């Protein structure tokens, strides 16, 4: 047992932190959040050059990382910086599926992804699928020349910037069957693909994507027909580790800002941090963050264990990120008082992202129920 990060990961973390401190002030981030795509292409290129995208892929796919702890170390740092560039969409989700399912030709795309030249997005969720990774009603039918895809994909993260969409569609089975789901590579400009991008409340971008008789060649299919679910589940698992880790970074910032405020803001003649009621609540905040951090470590460390153990750890990390994230965001705002309610003060932006993480890939209740179901499977 060893709870220290390897030197490589420590270096990665320090490098990202330094880069963000020097190049990524919140005002700049908020401006890029209001741009057409919701992030900065220029910064993205710099991230690529620093090797940050490569850190999310293993050597076999042209990267130099890709393990659970690579994800957690990087996303915790990205969270601290409130980074809105499309690491999750392009590398973890889109890239993750290609790395798992792609043939050699398809995998060539990853080189471009890692270099930041090509952007991916995973068009998987649908208007009624909520958090269920197996609910796919979008249809792909086999034709003489390949596939025709129809359906509506919802809240596709960075779907409005992607060059290539990884689209999931059902080739067989019922609406909620794990079996019968395939993934396809669909260029964003393909005829029949209609993309409506929009900002999100936490400074990201997403899109509603309508696919109407989108004709694709046979080479668009990723992996064996109808067998994409395990890869989707694993990509979602990695996404949840990323999100939970990002949440840890955000929580650390919220806690530090609040501690700082409690020490400097005076009311009734003393720093408000002298009020015992706030002290005790801050002690809870501190403890709970450490619990959420431990859950993240567990999930990252168990990513390669058998499915049930892996998924239970992932659900734990995400459930704690959701529960503790809400506690931290709400307490940070409450203890700051009015100032935290303003756009000009940094805290609110961190808080918005922290809360919204709970609405991505499963909220607290989803993961509680899922954990319980997995427990019964295991028993």
């Amino acid at each position, binding site marked *: 047992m060893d709870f220290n990060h390897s030197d490589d990961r420590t270096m990665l973390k320090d490098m990202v932190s330094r880069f963000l401190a020097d190049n990524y002030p919140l005002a700049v981030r908020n401006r890029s959040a209001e741009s057409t795509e919701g992030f900065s292409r220029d910064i993205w290129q710099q991230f690529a050059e620093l090797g940050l995208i490569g850190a999310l892929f293993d050597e076999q796919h042209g990267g130099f990382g890709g393990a659970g702890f690579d994800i957690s170390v990087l996303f915790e740092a990205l969270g601290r910086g409130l980074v809105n560039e499309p690491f999750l969409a392009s590398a973890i989700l889109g890239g993750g599926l290609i790395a798992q399912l792609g043939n050699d030709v398809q995998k060539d795309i990853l080189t471009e992804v890692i270099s930041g030249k090509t952007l991916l997005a995973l068009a998987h*969720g649908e*208007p*009624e699928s*909520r*958090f*269920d990774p197996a*609910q796919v009603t979008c249809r792909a039918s086999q034709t003489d020349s390949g596939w025709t895809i129809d359906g509506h994909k*919802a*809240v596709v993260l960075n779907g409005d910037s992607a060059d290539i969409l990884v689209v999931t569609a059902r080739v067989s089975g019922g*609406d*909620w069957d794990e079996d019968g789901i395939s993934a396809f590579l669909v260029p964003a400009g393909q005829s029949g693909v209609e993309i*409506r991008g*929009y*900002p*999100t*409340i*936490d400074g*990201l971008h*997403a899109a*509603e994507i309508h696919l109407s008789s989108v004709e694709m060649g046979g080479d668009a299919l990723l992996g064996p027909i109808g067998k994409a679910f395990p890869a989707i589940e694993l990509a979602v698992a990695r996404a949840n580790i990323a999100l939970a880790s990002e949440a840890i970074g955000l929580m650390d910032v919220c806690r530090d800002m609040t501690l700082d405020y409690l020490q400097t803001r*005076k*009311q*009734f*003649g003393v720093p408000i941090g002298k*009020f015992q*009621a*706030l002290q005790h609540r801050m002690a809870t905040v501190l403890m709970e963050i450490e619990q959420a951090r431990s859950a993240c470590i567990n999930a990252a460390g168990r990513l390669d264990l058998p499915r049930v153990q892996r998924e239970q750890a992932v659900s734990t990390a995400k459930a704690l990120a959701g529960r503790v994230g*809400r506690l931290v965001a*709400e307490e940070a*705002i*409450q203890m700051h*008082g*009015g100032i*935290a*309610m*303003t*756009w*000009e*003060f940094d805290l*609110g*932006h961190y*808080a*918005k992202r922290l*809360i*919204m993480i*709970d*609405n*991505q890939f499963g*909220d*607290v*209740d989803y993961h*509680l*129920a899922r954990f319980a179901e997995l427990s019964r499977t295991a028993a």
Partner: protein
Amino acid sequence: MDLNFSDDELAFRDEVRAFLDKNLPAALAAKVKGGKRLVKEDMDTWHAILNRQGWLAESWPVEFGGTGWNAVQQQIFEDECCAAGAPRTVPFGLKMLAPVLIKYGSEEQKRTYLPRILDGSDWWCQGYSEPGAGSDLASLKTKAIRDGDHYVVNGQKTWTTLGQYANKIFCLVRTSTEGKPQEGISFLLIDMETPGITVRPIILLEGTHEVNEVFFDDVRVPVANLVGEENRGWTYAKYLLTHERTNIANVGANKVSLAHLKHIGQHQKIRGRPLIEDPLFAARLAEIEMDLDAMATTNLRLLSSPDSAANAGPMSSMLKIKGTEIRQALNDLTRRALGPYAMPFVSEALDTGYNEAPIGPDYAAPVSQEYFNNRKISIYGGSNEIQRGIISKMMGL
């Protein structure tokens, strides 16, 4: 003990319903129910309609143009208005300044200002908080120095809600630095068009403009605009804080939110079945519904209690804390009910005249914004921490 409305109360409720049915503009109700942004004109419209009916000043005595309703009637009126989708009236003149003027204002002030509140000539805003004086209001620094027939006011107020629409502001200002901090405060009425006043918007974390900073730079205010006695403003401010209890718990609005959340829960799906049938969601919803049902009774019980006057402070505090807790729990569960569709945020979609199709279900657009915006309700008007302090004093701790 009788939880049922009396025949008189039932008749009153029917009268209110009939009035709303006939007079509340459908377009306005739709805006309110759809969570759209209201503009000044919307608020003015409803204000005028209520005034025409004589129902604008629920809590004022009849002699000043008020309704003379008792607590239960006021609550019935508020509940029905909420249920119908009426906008809330702007409280600064009607519910905050007016009770102070009625109790402590000069005859002249009452005669001048009360009618102008009713007919909409004056839009009042509140100048209490300052950057350095939030929960600790008594530490305020905005100064008013007597100069002949005027006070000269210098300083800054903040969190001035809807100040961008106001032509008048009532302020707590420091007229003396002797004694306890509370003792040197006065209550001044100031015309916003007086030279030296600047209003600067504060944009909230989710992008809305509700509150403002107001700067005073050598602003000359006639001495006649002092309410009551100099240096006794703290008493008037405290009276105001504890006097206004009707609707502090927001029961009517919370009931509407609950109904809306149930509607959402019926339309959101988990594996094709309504979210509201999901056992965990159903339990969270039940928890809030139970608490709200109890709250409605707590509210009426405390408001109509014979010793309510004596315990006004702690009672307001209880109602405020629990009311905000329920509202925030509703906002949070509504956010969760949406799943990923809580994220999209197209601000223009909340304005009238936005014609594009909604992103996701039609109820989604305002939800997250409301969640974040309503973090304020446990902070302003005396934070919930301040309220807990008031309760603990009352308990003898």
